[in-house]
């Protein structure tokens, strides 16, 4: 027994105009100042006004949304009592909207106690709309959110199926001016999530279909949007790919590259997509060495030569590295600018964090501490995984 969940997805040009059809009293838009400055929040407000809804704009989401900011936001939600909550922005804003919604619906709840095994009140007061302005995290289609407790200096993962947004609006107009570096980082997150969710022990027929097609779209359109951000057709497909991969990922799980990337991201403040994508080729090699993987399927979907798992995986790794080079991404920790002493000092903590990451258990081949240590070391120098 397993579930398949997806938000109601509105996609393509003019998708944002769906907001003008909303029925209700008040919408509460959760975003950040950059989105406001770029005029994207105004596009949303115009539609809400056309729908005859009152609105409140909250633009205080930080790049790494903090528990403290979310609690502040939930307090304002309580004062304004909206029946729609709209998360607008990159993964941070969408995660912030999910978390603030959870607190609004469950006053006083400790977000750190929220887990996938219990059920929580949601949708009694408001429904959630997610509007991504990057093409990558897939947060618009998942039931997870990550917060940072700035007082205790720790990450808090919130995951419960009810946190899935009711609607995801995938409008390419919102990503037309995404800068190349963010396009690459977020696009590679989508790629990593899609490839990992296809290999995860939680994978299933439903997630497989989505992940495989997302990988195809990303390989075709990510180089194009990186080279020419104004390529409207490519932007639209890439924006769809991120959501498709997100639904696949949300109904399966990411795996080892995400565990390693999370650890690296926290200790060295590396953008999420860049960190997870850096580890992806190494973890593919490690996984295929253990047997039982399904990389040949992916290689085949990309029309790469594949006689068997080993050649499929090798050609997939080569294709990923090619793509990463085109996107001017680092392939090793050294290229990322981490020096040897800093790396060695952080290594025990990197291993400890990666091996307690929840996504390690969904990896097809679960590394022990020694394997993890070597994986990080090989990724530092860019050595092929031979164990």
């Amino acid at each position, binding site marked *: 027994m*397993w579930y398949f969940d997806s938000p109601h997805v509105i996609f393509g040009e003019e998708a944002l105009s769906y907001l003008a059809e909303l029925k209700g009293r008040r919408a509460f838009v959760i975003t950040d100042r950059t989105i406001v400055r770029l005029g994207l929040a105004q596009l949303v407000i115009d539609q809400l006004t056309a729908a005859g809804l009152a609105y409140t704009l909250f633009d205080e989401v930080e790049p790494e949304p903090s528990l403290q900011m979310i609690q502040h936001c939930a307090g304002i939600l309580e004062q304004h009592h909206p029946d729609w909550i709209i998360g607008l922005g990159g993964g941070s804003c969408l995660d912030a909207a999910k978390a603030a919604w959870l607190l609004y619906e469950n006053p006083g709840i400790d977000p750190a*106690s929220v887990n996938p*095994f*219990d059920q929580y009140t949601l949708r009694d007061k408001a429904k959630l709309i997610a509007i991504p302005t990057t093409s990558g995290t897939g947060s618009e289609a998942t039931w997870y959110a990550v917060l940072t407790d700035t007082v205790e200096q720790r990450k808090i993962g919130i995951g419960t199926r009810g946190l899935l947004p009711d609607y995801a609006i995938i409008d390419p107009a919102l990503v037309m001016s995404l800068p190349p570096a963010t396009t690459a980082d977020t696009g590679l997150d989508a790629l990593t999530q899609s490839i990992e969710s296809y290999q995860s022990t939680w994978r299933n027929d439903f997630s497989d279909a989505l992940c495989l097609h997302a990988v195809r779209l990303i390989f075709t359109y990510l180089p194009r949007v990186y080279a020419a951000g104004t390529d409207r057709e490519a932007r639209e497909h890439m924006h769809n790919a991120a959501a498709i991969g997100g639904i696949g990922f949300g109904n399966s799980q990411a795996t080892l590259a995400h565990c390693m990337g999370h650890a690296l991201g926290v200790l060295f403040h590396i953008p999420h997509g860049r960190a997870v994508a850096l580890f992806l080729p190494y973890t593919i090699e490690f996984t295929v060495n253990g047997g039982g993987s399904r990389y040949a399927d992916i290689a085949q979907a990309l029309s790469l030569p594949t006689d068997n798992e080993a050649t499929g995986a090798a050609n997939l790794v080569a294709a990923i590295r090619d793509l990463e080079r085109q996107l001017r991404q680092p392939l090793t920790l050294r290229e990322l600018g981490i020096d040897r002493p800093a790396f060695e000092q952080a290594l025990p903590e990197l291993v400890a964090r990666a091996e*307690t990451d*929840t996504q390690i*258990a*969904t990896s097809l081949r679960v590394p022990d501490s020694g394997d993890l240590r070597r994986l990080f070391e090989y990724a530092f120098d860019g050595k092929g995984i031979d164990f």
Partner: protein
Amino acid sequence: MGIKFASDEWMKALKEELSKSDGYRDAAKTWEGDFYWVVTGMPGEAANVHLYVDLWHGECRDAFRATDAAAKTPEFIIEATYAVWRKVVDKKLDPLQGMVTRQLKLKGNMLKIMKAPKAATELVLCATRVATDWPA
């Protein structure tokens, strides 16, 4: 000829597998906590079967079939039907997925379990290594 699932002998065999497993020892090196695994609806059993296991820093300190459920008050209780336990031991059901879908019902601190995902995986691996007879 295997060992009957959920018998005291089966628990001893599991303890033996855990003690032999480097993978488990490494994955569970910081784990502290004991369990009742409760099997409901087991063929040939009039009542629920309580299996006690005490796991500590990569070691299985104790494992037995409890004759009196009140004998211990473990930190965690996981309850499932006989059919579900069989799927877990046969590696046909990931225990975390089983908990998400409530096929396995857990009492105790869920977050502590979520921080030890690798230990859970290795523990199941050890259980699969016990040659098990499944009474029909």
